[in-house]
């Protein structure tokens, strides 16, 4: 039977292809495509008393011009994303380099650093809320023990420290993931290139900057983009640790969307949907710009 009569080039009929694709397509359409389209639809409507009124771009205008909490949330998310992404990838790379040179206990260290990645945000959040507790939290206890009681803080209760405290927790959870990915990439580097650099009396720092990092560039860019997207959508950790407080100092766009949708005692999903749409567009734009800026023009082959 020819391909034109319903058989693919590898011999499967269109019916068979459709049969295998259908379950995944149905799930995708029901749980991804429909919610996305529905969110766009909601964003231009006002829902009130079981009716919906088309309001055009009014929700978007209100968000951009009359909502100080939204802008506070944008500022917090941006800070978290920029600082967190750089620290995440840089930290992971440094840890991977440490392990790459094969220090003693490198295997247990790898397991220890990677373990937080396997824990859920809920568990991580609860553990760190305890660690940060003013009275009995380990951090303040250690500070007191070291005679540095003057530095003890209500880490999550002070607007000046709360966002950074959450960021440290996030780093603790994700450093291990970046470390493992970088370590795998390091082990995949061609030994002859590194060997050649050593034969040329290339110092370790020069080897890192001029040989290793350029060859790791695709991996690092992927990590940066993944980390960036993850942080732009940050919700669970903040929700568990601070709920966006104190005084909106840890409010992220995602926690704000949730509050507007579910905590404000309205069934109006229009406004929070508009925030979600706006934020999604911004994430896509940022990722596109970031990928373009970081993309290497010359493809490195090894």
């Amino acid at each position, binding site marked *: 039977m020819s391909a034109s009569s319903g058989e693919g080039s590898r011999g499967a009929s269109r019916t068979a292809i459709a049969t295998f694709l259908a379950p995944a397509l149905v799930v995708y359409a029901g749980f991804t495509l429909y919610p996305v389209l529905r969110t766009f639809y909601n964003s231009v409507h006002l829902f*009130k*008393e*079981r009716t919906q009124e088309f309001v055009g771009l009014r929700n978007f205008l209100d968000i951009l011009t009359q909502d100080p*909490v939204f802008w506070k949330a944008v500022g917090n998310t941006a800070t978290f994303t920029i600082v967190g992404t750089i620290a995440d990838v840089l930290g992971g790379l440094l840890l991977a380099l440490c392990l790459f040179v094969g220090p003693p206990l490198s295997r247990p260290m790898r397991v220890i650093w990677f373990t937080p990645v396997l824990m859920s945000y809920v568990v991580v959040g609860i553990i760190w*809320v305890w660690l*940060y*507790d*003013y*009275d*009995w*939290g380990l951090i303040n206890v250690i500070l007191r023990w070291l005679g540095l009681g003057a530095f003890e803080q*209500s880490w*999550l*209760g*002070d*607007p000046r420290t709360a966002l950074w405290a959450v960021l440290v927790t996030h780093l603790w959870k994700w450093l291990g993931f970046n470390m493992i990915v970088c370590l795998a990439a390091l082990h995949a580097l061609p030994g002859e290139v590194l060997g050649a650099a050593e034969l040329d009396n290339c110092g370790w720092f020069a080897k890192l900057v001029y040989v290793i990092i350029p060859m790791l560039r695709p991996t690092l860019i992927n990590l940066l983009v993944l980390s960036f997207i993850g942080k732009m959508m940050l919700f669970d950790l903040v929700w568990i640790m601070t*709920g966006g*407080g*104190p*005084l*909106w100092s840890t409010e992220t766009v995602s926690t704000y969307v949730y*509050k507007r949708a*579910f*905590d*404000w*005692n*309205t*069934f109006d999903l229009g406004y929070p949907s508009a925030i979600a749409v706006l934020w999604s567009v911004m994430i896509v734009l940022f990722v596109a710009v970031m990928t373009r800026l970081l993309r290497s023009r010359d493809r490195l082959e090894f």
Partner: protein
Amino acid sequence: MMKTRAKWHLATVVLAVGLASAARAEEVTLTVWSHEADEAAKVALREQAAKNLEKSHPGVHVKITWYEKDGLNTALRTALPAGQGPDVFYVEPDQVEYITNGYIIPLDSLINWNNIYDWARQVWTHDGKTYALPEEAYTNELYYNRQLLAKLGAKLPDSAQFTQAEFLDIVKKARAADVTPIDQGVGDRPYPGAYIIGEALLRKLGLEDYGKLLNGKLSFEDPRVVEVFTWVKQLVDAGAYPKNFMTLKLGESHHYFYQKPGALMFPMGSFYTGRAFVPVEKGGQAPDFPIGIMQFPAMDKAACNECKTVAVGASFAINAASKHQDLAAAYLNELATPEMGKRWIETVYLQTAVKTGPTEFSGPYAGYFKELMERQKGAKYFTGMPVDILTGQCKDTFVQVMNKAFPGGLMSVDEAVKTMNQGCYKS
């Protein structure tokens, strides 16, 4: 012969299948979604009401699904707009959106309201219609440790109410003695941090003006309001609250008060008993814990120092999309019998919206209940917690400012008043 027997067998099978189908057709499953899965006494009561309904309505099966509050609310918010959800579900009075969006039906003609206190019914009455059956009631109380108060050399007046100056003095004395004066934590709730300031505002302003304040009709820059904020600021600056106020959770704050490290006072709804009156190994207070109840302090030049907040907690509503509304109402009526009300008090150790008639308290907590009832004498009640009344931006501002940042010492009086006005006052 064989053919005839086979025919009879076939007829019997058909008849049996037919009867089974008919029986199935008559069987009805009433679905109930409830919060408070972790409160055994309340679970037992609601299960008992289900059994009572099943007994009086053969063929009816009541299926209760137990949730935690957040999970329940999320499930309802998805199910109700889609015309789905259970026949009956748990609601609290701040969830007026179910009414405004038409997701629950009026119960005026469906419930035997003679069994429910009028004030509690009023909480659920909107535009002349009553939308939910109130089950749980509570008052805001100021619990204290008698032993610690005596150690500080203070004596509770006969009225059980200190003046605002005396109260400030006690807070200072407690802090000087390295005792946490007021145990409170806002780590996981939107309201505990505002107990002191809320009750002080109620006493200072009186029922009417306090209601206006919460409804955006009175400015937070009103001098009386500013005076209250200033007094609370003095308490905060005197170290009234624990240092871990911001992260301490509700359950932990109970433990903090009656176990470790201990505190002089603990403002809390009278649902305090749900966590405290359980065995010590399950996180309850020791049987010999010297608990007392005092009135919240009397404010200077107050409009109503005998005022206090009463609120309705657990309530149940009927889904407007339910196909079994009469049965759903019958289940609610089973929850609201005087017998169930009495059983509530005796097993949950908490007030109820259900009329029970005279109740004889006995057992280890009889003294506690006597004192709780004593604190209600002569009280004028304001119905509803601020979080039950506020909505939208005002509620969010209340949670961030009056519940957290202001008692947490992060804001000045001016900043707090200004921020509250921006969020709530409809000038």
